[in-house]
C-alpha cells in the first residue's frame, strides 16, 4: 500500500538537509518528493526519523526551497529504480532519468537501489580468466570474471585510456556469451565522459552499454546515487538476464568526496581526513556487489577508477578501497614519465583472485611460477638500480648487472605495449620467458623444475611460433646505454671487475 501525504511544515534548511516537523512516522530511508513554488520537483531521502520530525536529504540543489511555500511528500517507499533490458544503449543522468532522448523504455522490474547483501554461501568463486590483452595485467595481476579490481591512478595518468583498452579487448577465451557494460561517470568532466562514450561508439559496444552520467557540475549529492543505480542495473542484467556485466565506476574519489560533503552537512564526527567513520562500510556496499551467484548465468566484474589524491596510496580513499577490493592495478607516475604505456607498476599491483583463474587448462601451467619469478626479478632489479645509483654500475656484481638489464628490458618489452595491441596470454608468458632466459638458471627458484625444462628457451627445441618481439631499435638503444656507462664509472669504486679466483 502506498499512501502519500503532503506536508508544508518545513522547519529548517541546512546544506542539503531539510527538517520536516509535525509529521507522522516517516520510514527510515523513505523517498520524498519536494515541490517548489515553481512547480519543480526534487527527490529527497529520509536519513533520520522520529515520531515528530524527519530529516530529509535533498538530491540536488536546495536553491529555491523556502520554509513558507515548499511542500514535502512522503512516498512511503525506499529508492527504487525501474530496470529493463531496453536500458542497453541508453544514457541516463545521475538520478537515473534518461538523458539522451526522452523515449521511454519498458520497465521490467523495480529494484531497491541499495540492493541486498549477497549470501556468501550463494556466491560462486570467480575463476574464469579474462584476457585483457595487456601483458602486465594478464601475466601478473590476472583479472577474472566476477572480480572487483580497481585502477589506482593519479591525476594526469592515462587511466581512462587503459580502462577503455581493457573494455575494448577483454574477453574470455573460447566463450561467446552475452556481455554488457554498465558505465557510471561520477563527477567526471564532460571531456572524460565523451571520451568513454565515443570509445564505446567506435567499437560498437555502445548498444551493449548502459551509461549513468553525473558530471562535474551536477549536484554532488547525486553522486551517492549514481554508482548504486549502475549496480542495480548491472545486477538485473547479470542475475535476471544472464549477462556478463563489466561495471566501470569512475571516479570513486569523487564519490568519497560527496560522501564527506554529506557527512559534514549532517554534522557527523569526522574520521580520518574528514571522511566519515563508516566510509569502509559504505564503500563495501558498492564494491561487494561484484561477483557470481550460484545457479545464475551472469556475473558482475568491477573495474573502477580511483585517483589517489597526491599519489598517496595511504590516503583513506585508496586505502579503504584496497581493503575491500580483490587487488588493484597500480599506475606509476615514474613509468609514465619514462614514456611507458600502460604505466602499470607490478610492484604495487595485485590480483587476489589470480590463482583461481590461471594454471593448466585456464592459462598455462607455468603461469604462477613465471609471474612470481618476474615479480621477484623486477623487485631485485629495483634494488640493483638503487645500488647502482649510489656505487655506480661498474661496481655492481655480475648478477646485479644482469638484473639491472633485466629491469630495463622488462619495462620495454613486457610492460610497454601499444594502445591497440592485443596480446594473447601465450605471447605474454613467452615474453616473460624470453626475459627470464637472460638470467642464470639458478636464479629461477620460484619456478618448478619441470616447468623450467619444458618452457625455458634454452630447453625448448625452437623459439615459439608467436615470437616475442625484441625490435632492433631497443637493441640499439641498449648499446648506446652501454657506451654511456663508463662515464658513471667515476662514481663507482676502483676495485670492480675481477672476482673469480679460479
Amino acid at each position, binding site marked *: 500500500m502506498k499512501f502519500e501525504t503532503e506536508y508544508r511544515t518545513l522547519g529548517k534548511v541546512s546544506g542539503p538537509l531539510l527538517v520536516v516537523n509535525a509529521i507522522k512516522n516517516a520510514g527510515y530511508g523513505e523517498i520524498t518528493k519536494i515541490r517548489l513554488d515553481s512547480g519543480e520537483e526534487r527527490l529527497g531521502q529520509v536519513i533520520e526519523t522520529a515520531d515528530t520530525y524527519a530529516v530529509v536529504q535533498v538530491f540536488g540543489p536546495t536553491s529555491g526551497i523556502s520554509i513558507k511555500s515548499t511542500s514535502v511528500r512522503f512516498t512511503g517507499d525506499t529508492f527504487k529504480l525501474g530496470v529493463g533490458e531496453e536500458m542497453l544503449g541508453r544514457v541516463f543522468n545521475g538520478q537515473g532519468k534518461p538523458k539522451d532522448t526522452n523515449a521511454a523504455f519498458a520497465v521490467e522490474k523495480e529494484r531497491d537501489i541499495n540492493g541486498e547483501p549477497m549470501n556468501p554461501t550463494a556466491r560462486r568463486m570467480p575463476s574464469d580468466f579474462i584476457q585483457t590483452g595487456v601483458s602486465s595485467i594478464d601475466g601478473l595481476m590476472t583479472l577474472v570474471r566476477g572480480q572487483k579490481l580497481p585502477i589506482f591512478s593519479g591525476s594526469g595518468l592515462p587511466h581512462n585510456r587503459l580502462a577503455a583498452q581493457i573494455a575494448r579487448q577483454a574477453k574470455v577465451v573460447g566463450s561467446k556469451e552475452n556481455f554488457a557494460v554498465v558505465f557510471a561517470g561520477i563527477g567526471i568532466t564532460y571531456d572524460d565522459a565523451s571520451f568513454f562514450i565515443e570509445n564505446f561508439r567506435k567499437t560498437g559496444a555502445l548498444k551493449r552499454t548502459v551509461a549513468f552520467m553525473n558530471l562535474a557540475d551536477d549536484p554532488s549529492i547525486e553522486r551517492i546515487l549514481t554508482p548504486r543505480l549502475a549496480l542495480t542495473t548491472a545486477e538485473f542484467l547479470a542475475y535476471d538476464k544472464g549477462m556478463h556485466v563489466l561495471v566501470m565506476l569512475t571516479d570513486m574519489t569523487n564519490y568519497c568526496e560527496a560522501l564527506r560533503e554529506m557527512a559534514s552537512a549532517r554534522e557527523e564526527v569526522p574520521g580520518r581526513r574528514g571522511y566519515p567513520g563508516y566510509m569502509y562500510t559504505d564503500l563495501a556496499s558498492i564494491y561487494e556487489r561484484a561477483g557470481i551467484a550460484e545457479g545464475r548465468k551472469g556475473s558482475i566484474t568491477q573495474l573502477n577508477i580511483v585517483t589517489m589524491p597526491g599519489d598517496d596510496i595511504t590516503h583513506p580513499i585508496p586505502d579503504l578501497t584496497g581493503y575491500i577490493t580483490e587487488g588493484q592495478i597500480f599506475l606509476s607516475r615514474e613509468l609514465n614519465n619514462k614514456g611507458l604505456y600502460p604505466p602499470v607498476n607490478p*610492484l604495487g599491483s595485485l590480483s587476489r583472485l589470480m590463482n583461481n583463474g590461471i594454471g593448466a587448462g585456464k592459462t598455462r601451467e607455468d603461469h604462477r611460477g613465471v609471474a612470481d619469478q618476474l615479480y621477484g626479478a623486477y623487485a631485485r632489479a629495483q634494488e640493483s638500480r638503487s645500488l647502482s645509483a649510489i656505487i655506480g654500475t661498474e661496481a655492481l656484481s655480475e648478477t646485479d648487472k644482469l638484473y639491472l638489464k633485466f629491469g630495463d628490458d622488462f619495462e620495454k618489452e613486457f610492460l610497454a605495449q601499444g594502445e591497440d595491441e592485443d596480446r594473447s596470454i601465450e605471447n605474454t608468458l613467452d615474453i616473460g620467458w624470453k626475459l627470464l632466459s637472460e638470467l642464470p638458471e639458478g636464479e629461477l627458484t620460484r619456478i618448478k623444475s619441470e616447468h623450467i625444462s619444458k618452457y625455458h628457451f634454452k630447453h625448448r627445441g625452437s623459439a615459439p611460433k608467436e615470437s616475442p618481439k625484441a625490435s632492433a631499435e631497443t637493441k640499439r638503444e641498449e648499446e648506446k646505454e652501454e657506451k654511456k656507462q663508463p662515464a658513471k664509472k667515476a662514481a663507482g669504486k676502483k676495485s670492480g671487475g675481477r672476482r673469480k679466483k679460479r
Partner: protein
Amino acid sequence: MGIIERISGPLVVAKEMLGASMYDVVRVGSAKLIGEVIKLEGERAIIQVYEDTNGVRPGEKVVSTDTQLSVELGPGILSQIFDGVQRPLNMIKAKTGIFIRRGSDVNSIDRKKKWQFHADKKAVKGARVTEGTIIGYVEETPLIKHYIMVPQGVNGRIESIKSGKMSVEDTVAVVKTGRGMAKVSMLQKRPVRQAARYAEKIAAEVPLITGMRVIDTLFPVAKGGTAGIPGPFGSGKTVTQQSLAKYSDANVVVYVGCGERGNEMTDVLTEFPELKDPTTGRPLMERTVLIANTSNMPVAAREASIYTGITIAEYFRDMGYNVALMADSTSRWAEAMREISTRLEEMPGEEGYPAYLPKRVAEFYERAGRVKTLDGGIGSVTVVGAVSPPGGDLSEPVAQSTLRVVKTFWALDAALASSRHFPSINWLSSYSLYTGALQGWYDKNIGEDFTSNRNRTQALLQKEAELKDIVQLVGEDALPDTERVLLGVGRMVRENFLRQSAFDPVDAFTSLKKQNIMIGTMLHFGDKAEEAARKGVSAENSLELDVVKEISRMKEIPEEKIDAEGGKINEQIESQFKKLVAEHGMEEEVKA
C-alpha cells in the same frame, strides 16, 4: 512491549521500555529485526539493530525476548557457516535465495536431525554432576566427537540417562538438583558477552604447529596463546589466516570473517571441504565453524560476530579440545564499535574510537588460554587476530591496543608482499614471547638443536640486514669473503626457507622435523662456506657449488623422503667443500 520513537541508521530509540534490561535481545518493528539493548534512559531503551533498518517507521513495536544475546551450542554446529548473530547462512539461502533478506527467523541449530547419543560410562544414575561435566558424546563428524556437557547452573545427581538416536532438544538425562529435576538436552545456550567458566588457567607450553616455517621456527605461538597479524592491504593477512585455519594442528577451528570480502568466505567454503586434514585424511570442513559477516552485511552484527566466534570456541575448549580462533579482521570489529559509539553520541577517544576500545580488545584476547576444564580435562583456545591499520600505520589505536595484549606479533611487510615474498612476515620486526616456554617441548619432541638453530638463524638474518646496509653504501665488492658468504647464506634462508608457497601442495605444509632439517642444512652450508672463505676460497665459488641448487629445492622434497635426501645433501656439502678447499684454498687460514 515498546514503541519506536527515533531511527538513525542501525540505532533505534524505543519508549515505554521500562522492564527491559541491558543487553536484552529485542525484535524491532513489523519486520522483526534482531536488536540488542545497549543503553537505558528512564523508560527509553537504545537499541542497536543487527539488520538494515530501511523502511522501519516510528510507532512500530519493539518486543523484548528477555534473553541476552546468546549462541546455541550442540551437535550440528560443525561445518556450518553462520552470520554474525549465529543464523545459519545455508538455511537463509534456502529461504530467501542468493540475497540475504531481513528478519529471517531461523534456528541456529537444526532441530530435526537425529543424533546417536552415547552416554558416558561414568554417567550413571546417582552419579554427581556439576556444570561442565561430560555425560556423553555424539560423533558429530568422523573428526570430532561432540561431548555433551551439563549446562550452566545445573548441579546435582543424575536421575536418569539414556543413549539412543535423538534430536538436540530431546532430553538425554534428568538431573536431580536442589531446586528440583532439571532436564538436560544436547542443546545449550550461552551468552556471548561473558567468558565461559573453567577450573583454572594453566601454562601454555605446547606449540600450535602451523606448517609455516617462518612461524614455527622463528615466531611460534603456543596452544592457548594469542597472536596479532597487523599489515596493510595486500600484505597477505588473509592468506596467512587461511593457511593457519587449514594446516594448524588444532582440533577445532573457528574462523570469523569480520567485515571482510564475500569471495574470501566463498573461497573457504569451496576449498575446505576439498582439503584433507593431514593426519586423518578427512575434509577440513569437518572440524571447522565459520562465522561470516562480510563487509556489506549489517555493521552492528559485525560487532557481535567476534563474540559469537569466541563463545563457540570456548564451548569446544570445554570438551577438552585445542581450538584455534582466527579473527579477520579485528579492525572491522573496532570500527563497528566506533560507528555505534558515534551514533550514541559518546565522547570519542583517539581517532573517534570509544574510550573503552582498549578494554574491549584486552577482554577479547583474555578469553584465549590453555585451561583445566570444569570436567577436569585440558583444552585451549588460541586466538589469532588480524589488524588492518589504515595506511599500514601501526601507531593507530586498534593496532596499539592489540600489541599491548598479544604475545606473538607477526609483522606483515608490504615491501615483501610486493616482491611476492610470502608469507610476508618480516623476520626482523616480528617477535614471539613463547619461545622460552616452548623450549622444553622442542627439546623433547624435535631435538635440542631446534632452539639453537632458531637463535643462530635469527642472528644470521640480523647480521645480514646490517651488512646489506653497508653494501648500500660501499658495494658488495668491498666486503671480505666471509661476509659475502654470509650475505649469500642469508639470501638462501630468505628465499628457500622463509619464503613458502601457500598454493603448492608439498610446500604449503612443512613439519617441524623437516623444518629443522632444512634450516640445519642451510646453517651447515653456511658454516662450511665461512670456513672455506677463511681458507681463501672466494664467496662466489662457494655459493655456486652444485649443492646450492639442491638446497634451494629442499622445500620440494616430500615429508617421507626428507630424512634420506636431507642426509644426502649434507654429505654433498661436506664432499663438495672438501674438493673446493683442496682446489682453491690456501694452506693457512686468512684472517678476516
